């Protein structure tokens, strides 16, 4: 890499050809580089010869804005999410795109370019950096196969996807259920019936529901009030409950390509199914998650992070509004989403072996998301799809040591590209109690190691897998985690 060509205005029409071994970046009059920026950008390109573009964190009006790794989905809601972008002149020539073009990030996303994030503040701006307008995003949506347009979102300046009402792909909803009553004392209404009622209230066409019931089912599953939906009952084979096996049985039984795995202790908000399904029109997306709220409206799930090999739910207990500051309300790439509400393609899931029955209760969703990521598809969360989730209603959210051992053995330590490294918490024994607060950096220190989006399993320092694996314990055995963990 020879030089960084800083373009400062549209009047600067100098362009490079495919032989140019340089990098271009657009900084308007409202922006300026930090002293380390040019070196950091050129070093990133030097370290990663496969990189097409690089961006960093920015400071706007004195406020540092930390950013996640490259997320084509975030660009739909926040087109300036990675501006200013430093792009190889060769890449610009291949794309036929100018460095000043606000739609450049969308073009890079569409081309499947390798875009790196340097987790350090590289530039300061006195005002918001402009991004693509709604027309450009709508064109992009059409080109990548998403049947939606964008509308002004909340907060202002961000977009939200509005699915085409006429486009309702067929979806199979798979719900494993034990038939528990919402109120244990009167047993009047089952959780699964409330769930089905919420689905029916959406009045969506092209739906089928597959209910998985087993020996533990309390009552007669034939008596489930199906709220007028097309419900099929699948009986699980005898034996201890294995969430993954139940989901897999449902996936095999599903008749539609799009499948939605849903916990029976959820209530689906109107429009949530379409808000998720619309993303799967993009073949690069492999799984979509939703925003799950506790009954008190606080956040239970808004995408997951992995920190020190621990899958965690950020924003737990936060209000949706509070999570906005960290981008918690925009559709975006994440490393994993919860299996409590998980939409994907049946063919993809089957090709990957679906949920691993080695993880009957915990880690199965994160494991599947990592398999999807490594298959070349993306995993995203769409907060516009929201549900109520009574998480602790169905089971104690615990993780057993044998589950942890299996997890570490299979994936080791996976670095989460969408979790900013300055947010990593100190290694204190209470770290698992801090899920809701972990996003506040204590002493942020810029880092300059460029981050891509590849998922690479590496050995975890604990290496618990080296220990002999204990047999699968029954309920009540020792656990290592609590609510808020995956």
């Amino acid at each position, binding site marked *: 890499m020879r030089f960084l060509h800083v373009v400062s205005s549209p009047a600067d029409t100098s362009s490079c050809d495919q032989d140019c071994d340089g990098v271009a970046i657009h900084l308007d009059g409202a922006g300026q580089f930090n002293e380390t920026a040019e070196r950091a950008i050129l070093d990133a390109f030097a370290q990663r010869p496969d990189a097409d573009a690089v961006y960093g964190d920015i400071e706007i009006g004195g406020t540092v804005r930390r950013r996640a790794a490259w997320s084509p989905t975030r660009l739909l809601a926040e087109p300036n999410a990675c501006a200013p972008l430093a792009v190889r002149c060769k890449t610009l020539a291949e794309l036929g795109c100018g460095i000043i073009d606000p739609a450049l990030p969308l073009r890079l996303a569409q081309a499947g370019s390798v875009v790196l994030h340097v987790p350090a503040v590289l530039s300061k701006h006195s005002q918001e950096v402009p991004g693509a307008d709604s027309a450009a995003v709508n064109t992009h949506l059409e080109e990548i196969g998403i049947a939606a347009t964008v509308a002004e979102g909340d907060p202002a300046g961000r977009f939200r996807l509005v699915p085409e009402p006429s486009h309702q792909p067929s979806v199979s909803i798979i719900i494993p259920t034990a038939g528990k009553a919402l109120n244990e004392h009167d047993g009047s209404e089952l959780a699964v019936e409330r769930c089905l009622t919420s689905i029916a209230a959406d009045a969506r066409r092209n739906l089928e529901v597959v209910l998985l019931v087993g020996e533990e089912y309390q009552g007669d599953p034939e008596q489930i009030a*199906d709220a007028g939906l097309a419900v099929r009952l699948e*009986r*699980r084979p*005898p034996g201890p409950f294995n969430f993954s096996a139940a989901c897999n049985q449902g996936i095999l039984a599903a008749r539609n390509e799009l499948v939605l795995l849903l916990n029976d202790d959820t209530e689906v908000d109107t429009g949530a199914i379409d808000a998720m399904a619309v993303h799967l029109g993009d073949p690069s997306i492999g799984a979509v998650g939703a925003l799950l709220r506790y009954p008190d409206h606080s956040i239970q799930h808004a995408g997951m992070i992995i920190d020190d090999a621990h899958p965690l739910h950020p924003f737990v207990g936060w209000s949706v509004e509070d999570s906005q500051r960290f981008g918690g309300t925009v559709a975006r790439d994440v490393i994993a989403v919860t299996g409590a509400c998980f939409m994907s393609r049946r063919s993809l899931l089957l090709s990957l*072996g679906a949920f691993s029955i080695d993880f009957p209760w915990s880690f199965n969703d994160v494991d599947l998301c990592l398999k999807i990521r490594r298959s070349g598809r993306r995993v995203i969360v769409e907060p516009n799809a929201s549900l109520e989730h009574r998480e602790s209603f169905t089971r104690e959210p615990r993780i057993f040591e044998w589950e942890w051992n299996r997890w570490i053995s*299979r994936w080791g330590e996976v670095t989460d590209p969408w979790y900013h490294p300055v947010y990593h918490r100190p290694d204190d024994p209470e770290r698992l109690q801090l899920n809701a607060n972990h996003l506040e950096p204590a002493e942020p220190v810029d880092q300059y190691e460029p981050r891509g989006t590849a998922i*690479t*399993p*590496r*050995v975890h320092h604990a290496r618990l897998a080296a220990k002999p694996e204990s047999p699968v314990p029954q309920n009540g055995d020792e656990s290592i985690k609590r609510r808020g963990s995956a």
Partner: protein
Amino acid sequence: MPQESSTAASPDPIDNTDPRDLRMEILRLRDHSLGLVSHAEVLADRVVELETQNNELHEAFTNISRTAQRTIDELTQTNTALTQTNTALTQTNTELTQTNTELNEVNQALRVELNRSPLIRIARGVARRFKLVQ
């Protein structure tokens, strides 16, 4: 009203002719295969980590060995020098002992000669006369 279907369990999939069980087994094997791939990567990373540690240990041992050898060489040199000095001192000591013996013999001979001297005798007689000695 929901329609119903059922699945039977089998202890060994190879003896199972139920298509649903076999499909579940295919899923399990696909998952297992992917799990082995990622587990292999974890192990490969562990191998790299161990190789790095091994190289670091090898380097540390080499440094220690080199330092120890240097110290041993220095001590050997010192020892050789001390042995040489010791030999020289022993030789000097032998020579001094020999000289001492010779001087003692000379001294003894001188004493005998003195006792025989007439002047000594006269001197002793004078001393006795004047009761200078008992």
